[in-house]
């Protein structure tokens, strides 16, 4: 019978021995060395029976098919656009995936997306060299207009979105800001200036406390306190907003974290 050296929700570091015994199963973030299961990154231990895995606390974004990401156009090519994606790899948006229009050869592509534009896109393919194929076709995918973009730790995105989108919905409703969260850690916000400040502070609070319990209550209290006396614009139920809510639900299928 083996030994467990860690418990659920412990912070563990690379090289830390989590358990000893052949009956334990090394999940993501861990590896087996003989009898030992060892952590291979800094993370939160997740113990499910005999399966040991880690929830990463840090690390640059690793692109996955079907992820919704925010990218910035850096090049306009003959047949599409190249985007920077806040990770080591660039994304290619082909004409076909960028627009439903019939685009003539030699047409000026900047009328669709120009250098510096931020786009909400979906990853449809990741090549062996990690070049990303992305698409603008789908609910909620669009060019972002106005607002500002902040960068957050992409590993904390699931906590910012929350179970079934509950956390991000709470922030949106409390501040009245429109918010779109990319899986790659880029977040777009737009709302009255003081409300944006509160929304950003709430997101930073979640980032720094994601591994601690009682986070939802803490954020709720923070929002109530900071939004006192600030006007909250009515949450516009435009068609676009509905698509964005769908977007959040779509993102939520990828979240494994349970709310504490």
């Amino acid at each position: 019978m083996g030994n467990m050296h860690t418990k659920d929700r412990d912070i563990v570091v690379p090289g830390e021995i989590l358990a000893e015994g052949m009956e334990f199963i090394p999940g993501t973030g861990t590896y087996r060395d003989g009898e030992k299961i060892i952590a291979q990154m800094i993370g939160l231990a997740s113990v499910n029976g005999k399966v040991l895995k880690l929830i990463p606390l840090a690390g640059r974004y690793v692109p996955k098919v079907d992820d919704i990401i925010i990218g910035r156009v850096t090049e306009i090519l003959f047949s599409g656009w190249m985007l920077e994606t806040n990770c080591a790899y660039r994304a290619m948006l082909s004409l076909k995936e960028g627009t439903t229009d019939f685009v003539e050869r030699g047409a000026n592509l900047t009328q669709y997306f120009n250098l510096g534009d931020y786009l909400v896109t979906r990853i449809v393919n990741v090549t062996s060299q990690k070049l990303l194929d992305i698409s603008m076709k789908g609910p909620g995918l669009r060019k972002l207009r106005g607002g500002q973009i902040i960068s957050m730790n992409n590993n904390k995105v699931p906590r910012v979105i929350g179970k079934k989108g509950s956390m991000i919905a709470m922030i949106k409703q409390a501040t009245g800001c429109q918010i779109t969260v990319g899986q790659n850690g880029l977040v777009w916000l737009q709302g009255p200036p003081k409300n944006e400040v509160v929304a950003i502070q709430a997101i930073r609070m979640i980032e720094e406390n994601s591994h601690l319990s009682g986070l939802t209550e803490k954020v709720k209290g923070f929002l109530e306190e900071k939004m006192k006396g600030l006007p909250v614009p009515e949450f516009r139920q435009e068609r676009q907003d509905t698509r964005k809510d769908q977007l959040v639900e779509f993102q939520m299928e990828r979240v494994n974290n349970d709310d504490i």
Partner: protein
Amino acid sequence: MTYDKRFDGRKSFDELRPMEAKAGIIKSADGSGYFKIGKTEAIAAVYGPRELHPRFMQDPSTGILRCHYNMMPFSGSGDRIRPGGNRRSKEISMVMEKALIPVLDLKEFPNAVVDVFVEYPQTDAGSRCAGITAASIALADAGIVMKDLVCAVAVGRVADKVLADLNYDEEAYEDGPVADIPIAYLPNSKQITLLQMDGQITKPMLIDALKMGMKVCDKIKELQVKALKDKYGEAQ
């Protein structure tokens, strides 16, 4: 000639100078670490995996690690140090890479680079080891996949004694033979990933020195682990 009392008053020959370790001290970086041993201070920052420039350096089969060792102009105990690298810093950068690579697996990041920058506000011997120790904290802090943490310490010999963590005065000892042996060590697999020797030593003393180094690295690893975990300690 015997070396009886250590110049800085340390009681035993395997005693390390007072140490301090921190993680996450540079907000712009993907990961960062700080390690101080005696008067030697190293600050390490990790950026990456990120796109590698120039493109001809890209490796389509794996990401690469690049270390950059640099001393701040006011860090030395003598004259001002002219900024810009020199041959020594190039060599140290390279051995630091070789010390850290064995725990990394960058195959998931073709064409990308993990850059590690190590800077020294002040030095008093053992700088490359302090740098590797800080770099290891920084790599872990950056969420890089690592089999183990890497610890490093300079062991060596002064006259008739084998000792750990030589300070500047011990390295400069003139009344007998001296050997300066920086090592880097992986505690789990018990492997040595950096080994250099400067000076004169017999093989038996060398082996004793290495064994001493491997033992004291446990204390260094404890500090690295604590630094990383302390970052997540309290609610913000």
